[in-house]
């Protein structure tokens, strides 16, 4: 998808299976919303195709694609009450008003808003509005439900609670879902597969454990909080066992009194169950080579400015494209 000179989404190839939940994770500006709008038909793609069961959707306008889209700011209809909103999609598909309202009530029960039928949209809390928007999108049981950062405006606790409920609900309905977010926890928590989006391209896609445990590119590694290290000097190379750019998990680095690499603590941040300590590793000439983040379990980690030694556990090292195994010393 191009907007003038800006390529918003490029070279994307994602398939969602029946009943599968695919998370699309990426930083702001990576083209996530654009992707969903293009699939929904609200914006025409410059090139590429959207296929449903093999049929090209390009000829169909948005209202005939049988896709559901839940917007970030939910876009609830202010002139209709809760039931009116949820029943909307059901009414558009034909069928009597009574059936539509009955199914809408069912859906409201499922999202935990039973009895909210006649309430006005403007009187609902943020979380309640979110649930109504969800119910509205789910009610017509679309072939694919797309969620655009649905939990963005809520506080952390509510978000965590809702993401679990959301996943359970969609699985119980057998609903195929494309879930777009910038939040790691949401994406990995809910998705059967996770796709990492960067500058409009999918850098990696796979099941959560796979992506988390073995990032495929430097961007993915950095985005997930791994250390991206250019192991070009011999000391580092020997430790990580590769020459070139590698990713090292923060908890694969540890402080050890005799560790082969030494450096200086630059900053330290409290992270609930561990401290994130940034260490600048010195090269053989003493000049700083690279900074790495360590997850340190010790409740009393070294202070800023302290000299420390670092050890690398090879299990937590992943070679990135372009790196080669270092010859065994």
């Amino acid at each position, binding site marked *: 998808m191009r907007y003038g000179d800006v390529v918003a989404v490029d070279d994307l190839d994602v398939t969602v299976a029946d009943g599968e939940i695919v998370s699309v994770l990426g930083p702001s500006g990576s083209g996530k919303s654009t992707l969903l709008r293009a699939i929904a038909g609200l914006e025409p793609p410059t090139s590429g195709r959207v296929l449903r069961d093999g049929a090209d959707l390009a000829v169909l306008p948005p*209202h005939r694609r049988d896709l559901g889209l839940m917007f970030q700011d939910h876009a609830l209809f202010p*002139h209709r009450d809760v039931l009116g909103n949820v029943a909307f999609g059901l009414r558009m598909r034909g069928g009597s008003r009574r059936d539509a309202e009955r199914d809408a009530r069912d859906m409201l029960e499922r999202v935990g808003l039973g009895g909210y039928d006649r309430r006005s949209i403007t009187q609902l809390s943020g979380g309640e509005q979110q649930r109504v928007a969800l119910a509205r999108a789910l009610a017509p049981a679309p072939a694919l439900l797309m969620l655009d950062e649905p939990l963005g405006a809520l506080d952390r606790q509510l978000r965590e609670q809702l993401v679990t409920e959301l996943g359970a609900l969609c699985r119980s309905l057998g609903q195929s879902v494309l879930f777009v977010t910038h939040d790691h926890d949401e994406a990995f928590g809910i998705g059967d597969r996770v796709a990492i989006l960067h500058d409009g391209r999918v850098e990696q896609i796979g099941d959560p454990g796979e992506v988390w445990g073995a990032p495929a590119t430097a961007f993915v590694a950095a985005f997930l909080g791994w250390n991206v290290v250019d192991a070009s000097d011999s000391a580092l190379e020997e430790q990580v066992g590769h020459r070139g750019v590698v990713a090292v998990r923060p908890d694969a680095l540890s402080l050890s009194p005799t560790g082969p690499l030494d450096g200086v603590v630059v900053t330290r941040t409290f992270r609930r169950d561990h401290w994130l300590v940034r260490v600048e590793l010195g090269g053989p000439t003493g000049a700083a080579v690279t900074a790495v983040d360590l997850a340190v379990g010790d409740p009393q980690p070294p202070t800023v400015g302290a000299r420390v030694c670092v050890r690398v556990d090879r299990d937590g090292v992943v070679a990135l494209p372009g790196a080669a195994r270092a010859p065994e010393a």
Partner: protein
Amino acid sequence: MTSRAAQLARAAMIGVPLAFLAVFFVYPVVTIIGRGLWPDGTIDLGPIADVVTDPSLRQVAWFTVWQATLSTVLTLAVGIPAAYVLARTRFPGSGLVRSLVVVPFVLPTVVVGSAFLALGIGPSLGAILVAHLFFNYAVVVRTVGGLWAHLDPRQEDAARMLGASRVRAFTAVTLPALRPAILAAAAIVFLFTFTSFGVVLVLGGPTHSTLETEVYRQTAQLLDLQTAAALSIVQLLAVLVLLVVTERLSGHRVVALTLRGATATARRVRGLGERVFVAGNLALALILLGAPIAVLVARSFETSYGIGVDNYRALGELQSGSVLFVPPEDAILNSLEYAVVAMCLALVVGGLAAFAIVRTRRAGAIDAALTLPLGVSAVTVGFGFLIALDEPPLDLRSEWILVPIAQALVAIPFVVRLTTPVLRAIDPRLREAAATLGAPPRRVWREIDLPIASRALAVAGGFAFAIALGEFGATVFLARPDRPTLPVVIYRLLGQPGSTTFGAAMAASTILLILAAISMVVVERARVADTGVF
């Protein structure tokens, strides 16, 4: 809906209002210009030259500008503090006050004129100024207040945190933000007072006249159509300039407002100073707006031997041969009938125009075109109808429909101004959401645009009805003598000496006042959003 049908629909949406405008506005106005500039087939700037050089007429023109300027300054000075009080503070009854403030605007100018006469404020410049303040108070309060209510109060707070005093924060942050609304309000008030007719006619007396009343005098009393036409042209030019300035200043802020009231920014009154300020403004509003009305109603019940309903009875007893050719019930019925027809016309034309404006790119031009009748003054419209629509196929001079058409023409700009902001504020995401839920374009229109618009149209309809009810300037030209409206009857009664006729005029004014007030209160109750610009 196929795109072909959609294109046709869109063409109709733009075409109908423009056609209406062309036939019932452009054509009459062009005829006026023709009559003034080439009366016998050759271009003759004589009449215009006469008008421009005649010292008494130049005096009239100068007075028109002068009183309009004074009126504008006065109304702004009084209206801006009031705008703050009504838009940004919350006190018991503030909603009701906000509704009632608009009532004077739609009152017939004749009624107000007679109210001031009843107060003993005789014909003078001062009376004209205060009467103009009475009418246009609501314009400033709603226009400036409408924007003020949506300004983020946190911006002023931020300025104060950075070290600005309260006054400084106001002048440095709020005032610049309000500038567009203040200028727009000033331009509108100037426009209205420049073309003011009823007020000047009743309260100006023989010594004060404006271009507008002069046109009427030349036409109806001196039967000098050429001079009248020349005067109209001069006024037209002045108004055109004014309109261009208005358009530039008010602009078209496309703000996606949420369809909720702006009560979120209003806060309770705190502190003694603020209480005094609020109370003072409310008292002033009460006196300014309430006193004339109260006096009017009171005088209507005053008879030669005490309080009674004699004046109302007198209305019914004055036979033909005196002033009324028809019983007052008929005048009331005429008024109501005309107003209903005018309302329907205004809603159809104005509603279509509003939809067209929201959907096309050259919105500014269409909006300006439809607002022209507003500026060009009812007298010119009435006059234009008279001299233009007198030949087949448009010989409508003796048709009753002429009056509602003229009234609709005056009301249409208001319908457009009231409906377009609401339509514009419809979040496009709502339409997208409806589309993703399976609604085809025509259904989207029916399910989203129409329900939201119909509320706005209801409000606009009530407004149009009230405006048509009180319309005087064009109606006095066009209403057949045997089918007058209430405002015309009142004017006739005022023109006759005698306390009985005066009392009857008060009675008729009170009836008209009540009818207008009812429709405005109904309108205000039905409002969906505080998109407060006219």
